Every structure is written in C-alpha cells, then in structure tokens.
C-alpha cells in the first residue's frame, strides 16, 4: 500500500494559477468609486459624517436651497426640505436604508431561489414542475399591485418591504440556478461523486453549488440595482419604507410637490438612485465578463 511506484515526480514551481483580480482586466474604477462613496461608506458611517438629525428638522430653516444658490449656507450643503431637515443628511441615512433593504432582500431571495433551483434542477420530475409553476406565477405578478395589496393587508414596515422584494426576486435566482444545475448534474464529476457514494445533499452542496457560485455572485450584484430601484418605487408610491424614515424613494416622492420651486428635494435623491443603480449594473456586467463570459446571453 505504501510502495510508491516509480513515476516521474512533479516539480514544484511553474504552477499555473489564476492571476489576481486586478491583473486580469481593468477594474471599473469609476462605478466602484461611486458605489463606495455614494452607497457603502455613507451607509456604514452615517452618524460620523453628518451633524444633523435625519428625522427632525429645524423649522426656521425650511426649504433652504443648496449652498451655491442664493440663500444657501454651508450648514446645509444640499439644502433643506419643507420640515427643515438637511437633504444631505437624509441622503446619507437613505443610503443606509437602501443598502440594508437590498442586502436583506437579496440574501433572502437568493437563499430561497438557490435552494429551490438546486432541488428543481437536480431532482427534476414532479418537483421541478411544481417549482417551475411557482417561478412562472411569481414572475408574472405585477410587482406594484402585489406590493400594494400586501402593504394594505399587513401595513408598511421594514420586514414587509424586504419580504415583498424577496418574493419578487427569488424566482430569478431559482431560474438561473436550476439551469446551471441541469448542466452540472450531467457532468462527469457529479457522476464520479455518485459512484463514490455521496448523498444528494452532499453533491448539491459540495459539487453543484460551488460551480454555480460564479453565476450567483454576478446575479446578486445585478439584482442590487434592481432592488434599490424597487424599494425606491415602492417607497415613492407609499407602499415601502414607513415615513419619516429617509428612503431615497420617499425623498423623491415628497419633493414632487415643490418640484418647481425647490428642485433640489427630488433632484439629489434621484441622482443618487441613478448613479448607484447604473454603477451597480456596470460592476455586475464587468463581474459577469470577468467570471463567466458564457453567462452573457442568460442574464
């Protein structure tokens, strides 16, 4: 058993490994910077970088314009709303809500979708059919109507909006993972694992999941933008984050009434949504090309 047969030994060195991320292809610096400085850093450091209260304003300082316009002051660089709250502060705290909601919704959606996709793709048959029907049903639900009904029934809250958004995105993950699982299931290494005696859960976790992880990461990144947009839309129509929390969507909605006189109320949160979602999509595209060019047609 321990006798080594004389075969040429393998030399160390000359190992081919994947080069580091930033050596392969130029990183999308600008989108990454926008995500970092508009979304992630403000969300994490909100209390440290603002001096005002996001919820309670100074009524004497209502509807002040941004600093570069007549009447603007450095105390409120992007102006104030009709309750005298600092727009910049609310933007920063809004980033926190966007990040929180999107992370939670994507984690829940991806978890549910991935589990169902793995099961559907690997076992096939009746289970696959049932999950397929569920996916089709959820994908054909009009999201806004669905959200309005749910919110009307159980009232707006963080948990409600996360649940609503998860419910609308899990099907995307389920569909993606099911497809990838179908192809991985037929691979020789899954056959080998079955011959080795590995159980279905073990095969799914050790062999299938790691090999669909690339696609999952790409999909999750692309979905962050979608979710932020969904949250903003729901908040805009009043079915999202309960007031007076400073969601970007709520800020756009509330600024609408003064749009002609106080343009900055809707403009800055609108721009924040635009550049963040655009950047997330660019980073997602880049990640997709970097990790798996063949995914291009599927997403």
């Amino acid at each position, binding site marked *: 058993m321990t006798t080594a047969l004389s075969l040429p030994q393998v030399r160390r060195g000359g190992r081919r490994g994947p080069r580091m991320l930033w050596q392969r292809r130029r990183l999308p610096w600008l989108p990454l910077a926008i995500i970092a400085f508009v979304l992630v850093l403000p969300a994490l450091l909100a209390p440290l970088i603002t001096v005002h209260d996001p919820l309670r304003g100074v009524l004497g300082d209502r509807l002040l314009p941004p600093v570069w316009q007549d009447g603007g002051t450095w105390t409120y660089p992007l102006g104030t709303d009709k309750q005298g709250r600092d727009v910049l502060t609310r933007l920063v705290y809004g980033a926190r809500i966007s990040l929180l909601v999107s992370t939670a919704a994507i984690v829940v959606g991806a978890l549910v979708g991935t589990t169902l996709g793995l099961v559907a793709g690997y076992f096939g048959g009746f289970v696959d059919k049932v999950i397929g029907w569920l996916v089709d049903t959820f994908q054909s639900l009009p999201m806004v109507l669905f959200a309005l009904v749910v919110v009307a029934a159980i009232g707006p809250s963080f948990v409600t909006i996360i649940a609503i958004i998860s419910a609308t995105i899990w099907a995307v993950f389920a569909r993606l993972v099911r497809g990838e699982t179908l192809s991985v299931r037929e691979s020789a290494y899954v056959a080998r694992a079955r011959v*080795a*005696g590995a159980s279905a859960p*073990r095969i799914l976790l050790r062999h299938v999941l790691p090999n669909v992880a690339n696609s999952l990461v790409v999909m999750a990144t692309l979905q962050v933008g979608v979710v932020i947009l969904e949250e903003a839309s729901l908040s805009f129509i009043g079915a999202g984050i309960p007031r007076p929390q400073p969601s970007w969507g709520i800020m756009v909605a509330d600024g609408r009434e003064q749009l002609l006189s106080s343009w900055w109320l809707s403009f800055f949160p609108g721009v924040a949504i635009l550049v963040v979602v655009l950047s997330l999509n660019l980073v997602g595209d880049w990640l997709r090309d970097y990790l798996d060019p063949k995914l291009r047609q599927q997403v």
Partner: protein
Amino acid sequence: MSGSTLVEVEDLSKHFRVTGGPLGVRTAGHVRAVDGVSFRIGAGETLALVGESGCGKTTISRLMLRLETPTTGAITLAGRDVHRLDRAGVRWFRRKVQAVFQDPWASLSPRMRVGDIIAEPLVVNERLSRTRVRLRVADMMGLVGLQPWQARLFPHEFSGGQRQRIALASALITEPDLVVLDEPVSALDVSVQAQVMNLLKDIQRERGTSFLLISHDLASVRYIAHQVAVMYLGEIVEQATADEIYERPRHPYTRALFDAILPAHPDDRRPGSDAADEVPSPLNPPSGCRFRTRCPHATDVCGHAPPRTALPGGGSVACHLYPATAGSTKGPVRQ
C-alpha cells in the same frame, strides 16, 4: 487467469424509451442500448469491452456503477444482485466498486482541492478521523506517483495524466474489488497513456483489483486486458481471452475492427475486410444477426439469430459461420 468469479452479468438489457409526438409523451420506440449481454469478471482480472461508439459499452459501465437500472437481467457482485441492495448493501457496494471516467478534465470538481477529491469515497462511506483520512490520501497519492503536498492544489494545476492519476487514487482509496475504467486513457497524450496503463497493471498485480475496461483503443486493450468482449449494437458478438482474440479473431465484426488498427508500417496493412456503411440505428436493429447489413459474409441464414458457439479457453462467438456443433478453432467456413 481463472480466479474466483467476482462479477457475473446475466442477460443484461437496458432499453431507453424514445418519446415523440407533439407533446413528447407518445412512445416512439425503444433504443436497445444493451440487449441480452452476459459475461463474468474473475477476481484480479481485467475484462475489456470494445466496440465502436454507440455500441452500448458505456451503458454497461453505467449499469455496473448503479447509475442506471437494467430493463432486464442482473449484475451480481460477490454473489449479491447489485440492483437489489438495501441501504447497508448500497454502502457496501460503494466501497467495493469505484470508477475512473474518460475525461480527466471533466471528472474532477474544479472547485475542490485534490486532497478532498481523493478522500471523497472514503469520507462518505466510512467514519474516520481527519488524520486517518489524510494519511490514507497521502498513501494513495504516493501510490499513483504524486506528492502529498499536492493535496492542497486544485485540479486545474495538474496535467491530464496527473489528473487521471488523481482520479485513480480517488477510485482506489476504499480498496475496491472492482474499478470500472471508462476509456481511462483515450483523452490523454500517447506518451502519458503508457504511463497510466503501466500504473493500472502494477496496481492490479499488487492489490488483486479487477478492472472492467471500456475502450475503443485496441492496442491499449491488448496491453492490459485478460478477457476481451467485442460489442456491436448492444450485443456481445465475440468474447475470448485477449491472446485468443488477437491471434484468432473469429467474428467478421471482430476482424473488421482489428483490421482497422493502423499497423506500425503501412506495408503490414492487411487487405480489408472493412465493414461497409453506417451502423444501423439501435432504435430498429436488423433482425437475426445485427451485423448482417454490413457483413461481407452475410447470407440468408443470417436473418435468423446466430448460435452462440463456445470457444476454447472459455470464450464464445455468435455467428452463423461457426455452427454450435462444430466447435472449430480454425478460421471461418468460407461460403
């Protein structure tokens, strides 16, 4: 070469339903991938299944590995029907039978470390401490000529031959009685093929492992097989010891197959008994002898099922050229 019998395959068939019609639910027919195949493998022996693409040899290997269930017939391993095992029986079977697949680029999980790949059959079948597993993995890596430190690497850091040796180490770690080798070297460079085949021979000599070798490479088969079974359209047309079948191929298909091997020198090429035309569809195989549509010796009698004639040394051939009574060891009766 006649040890005790390890594997007994009797009248094994596997038919795949082909669906058709607008809804894809109507049965359009059955592909008879494997049809009434019988053979045995002795302990410490290598049986080679040879034949052209689509003849059913890979289906047999999948049946042998319990990746498919047979339509009829049975496979017996050490006296137990492998398709009628209880849970404990399946665990026993998984330790006794392992496999090495054709393409070493596809058969190792790209996201697993080589050490984990090699250990997998052990980890899922036996309760062992991590240290014991690591020691067994190191043993196996030594056996196939790899360094223990390489257990930390990923499959893409190895060459094709090394990867096939990794697959072999994994297959051997539970000390199985039978290893199914599905085209183990056909994806490798010729220089590496010899290396892997020598390794297989050494392992068989040291541990008495039986091999079921699926191959279309007749040169490599001759090098390591004791018994050879030639398949055509889901049936075994001839079966004999390797020496016998290479010296005296009897069935016209066997001869056509062997004549297709390119000799070392072009002048050595035997004038052809080349089989004409395409292989008929296994959906609708010819009646009687399935080779008769391409056989240079075909006559009217070939419309009936050919007799299976025993050959000296325990083989058999299924062809009307060799009537059951004659038992001739000479060449074919020319008509």
